[in-house]
């Protein structure tokens, strides 16, 4: 990968809360190639959504980006001014969210919401925008698009709302789509339909996808590569099959053994020891997994290990990998 579409470099983000500063992301680096589908996997508190929001510039007021670069086609997103950013997001990169219903404006018809994005990024007459809106609805396979474009989110099922979310995100054929837990909260049958839709549209439009999820099985089915996050660190990056078959980071290995769909009987299921370190601590260990790890070495605590710009095929942030 000589020229990635997106390169996140050493991203460090803190949250200022009334209970102290939370070190949410620490030196997060990864990249996403053209047309690739990448899974960003982590449990709650791993920082996967914060990573996505940093890329899109939608972090809330409490967040402080301490350092790092987010390069999109070589251009630093973090350095863009407001209007540059507004012209970039929605057009070059876009995002779909976890809760499809609340992610849509409840009192604006879904057609208008798609049209808003189209009108913003493509210079066109009203009639063209209308036609394009209907096309966008057709693209996400919404039956009876003319009628449905006048519907409001509360009149549609969760699955249909998520298709609208996808239509909004893909309206301007962006180069990058971030899908932040797009099917959590949907039924498993709907999940399959939505995920297939995302994959097929991405392939058609040659859009790269970052699938953010806690569901290892889901990610492994749809993604080319996986990025494993733990407590604000990227711990392992590798092609899907390689990670599933030969996880090298102790956390990845333990995570895989706790996934029900990857084991045959309940006896094989294993839980991960301990819990996430408190990210407000000032004395966070260099390796945030160290306190839960059974392969810990003295050097883990002595020296900081950078995953670095993770350009290797199979990168692992561990002194003593499997």
């Amino acid at each position, binding site marked *: 990968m000589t020229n990635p579409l997106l390169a996140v470099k050493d991203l460090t983000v803190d949250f200022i809360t009334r209970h102290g500063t939370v070190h949410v992301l620490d030196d997060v680096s990864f990249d996403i190639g053209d047309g690739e589908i990448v899974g960003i996997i982590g449990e709650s508190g791993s920082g996967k959504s914060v990573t996505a929001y940093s890329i899109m510039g939608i972090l809330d007021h409490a967040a402080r980006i301490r350092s790092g670069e987010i390069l999109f086609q070589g251009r630093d997103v973090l350095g863009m001014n407001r209007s540059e950013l507004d012209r970039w997001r929605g057009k070059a990169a876009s995002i779909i969210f976890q809760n499809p219903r609340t992610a849509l404006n409840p009192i604006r018809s879904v057609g208008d919401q798609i049209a808003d994005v189209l009108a913003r990024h493509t210079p066109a007459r009203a009639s063209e925008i209308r036609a394009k809106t209907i096309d966008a609805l057709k693209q996400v396979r919404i039956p009876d698009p003319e009628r449905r474009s006048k519907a409001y989110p509360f009149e549609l099922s969760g699955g249909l709302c998520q298709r609208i979310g996808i239509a909004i995100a893909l309206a301007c054929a962006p180069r990058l789509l971030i899908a932040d837990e797009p099917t959590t909260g949907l039924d498993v049958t709907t999940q399959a339909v939505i995920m297939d839709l995302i994959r097929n549209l991405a392939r058609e439009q040659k859009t790269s996808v970052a699938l953010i999820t806690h569901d290892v099985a889901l990610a492994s089915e749809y993604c080319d590569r996986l990025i494993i996050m733990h407590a604000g660190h990227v711990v392992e990056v590798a092609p899907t099959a390689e990670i599933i078959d030969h996880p090298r980071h102790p956390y990845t290995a333990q995570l895989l053994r*706790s996934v029900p769909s990857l084991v045959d009987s309940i006896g094989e299921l294993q839980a991960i020891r301990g819990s996430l370190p408190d990210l407000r601590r000032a004395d966070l260990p260099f390796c945030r997994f160290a306190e839960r790890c059974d392969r810990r070495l003295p050097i883990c605590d002595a020296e900081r290990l950078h995953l670095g710009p993770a350009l290797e095929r199979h990168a692992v942030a561990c002194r003593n990998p499997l």
Partner: protein
Amino acid sequence: MTALLEARNLKKHFKLAAKWPFSTPPKLHAVDGVDLVINAGEAVGLVGESGCGKSTLSRLVSRLLDPTEGQLLLEGEDIGRLSTARFARSEQRRLIQMVFQDPTESLNPLFSAFDLIADPARMLLPRAGKAELRRRVEAAAQAVNLPLALLERLPHQLSGGQKARVGIARAIVVEPRLLVLDEPTSALDVSVQATVLQLLDQLRRERGIALLFVSHDLNVVRLLCSQIVVMYLGQVVERGPSTEIYANPAHPYTRALLSAIPTLRPGKLERIKLEGDPLSPISPSSTQCRFCGRCPIERAQCRTSMPALRELAPGRQVRCHFAEEALTGLPAAV
């Protein structure tokens, strides 16, 4: 042998608000004639999509709701006739306990973990003295691997996994025969889920507590349960031993459900896409299969007659006119 718990033609219809004054209010058929058998020490998985009635059924079985119709037999005795308030004071209340979905919402925020676990024991084991109560609470906490030091804490001072343990400890402190679990792990991270699942399995094996495990996640059910009941729109559409259902789902809905599970395992089912939305559970037709409109093998007959839940093989039941066809016509799973 009498089953531990048996439901016969159990129904729960909710009256909805009438749209206009004086018009007949419509009824939501949440649970519409369900038969269910749970044997002592057995784990039964109840699966289906949201809105299929599995949560209502779990509340009928735990006697939080009064059934509209049908029988609910606990060791042969009909407990469905007693009102929920009367049942709360009966001897049998202790035997059926429940673990709830959201570990945060199901714990009284003003009670310490000790009081939370002790509460059912205080009510249902009135003869237990103070020392006895403490002994039982600590035993229950130990059984769920909850450090005794945490007993003093309030719910919001506990992690998600710890709260889930308190919820289970509270349910087992009165030594029930049946534990009804309503999606107990859906709010938890996978790593925590794994410990909870193992804990439940251990309770079943070591204490002979039967489990009714309600879930939308077939993978979880597969690991924990020997029997599976699949619900669709208030009805049971398929049930039988889990190994058989996984290997060879007979109902098209079960097939779709299984095929939709993301997995890395080889030989998975060809994806059956369910387009469209389910029919409405409000005043549904009695002369139509409820899977109509989404079924991949739907025929004219399905729209004119409701299939009955029939025996496909010993211990295996399905509600589909064309189940045999589905069994042979499509590639097998796993």
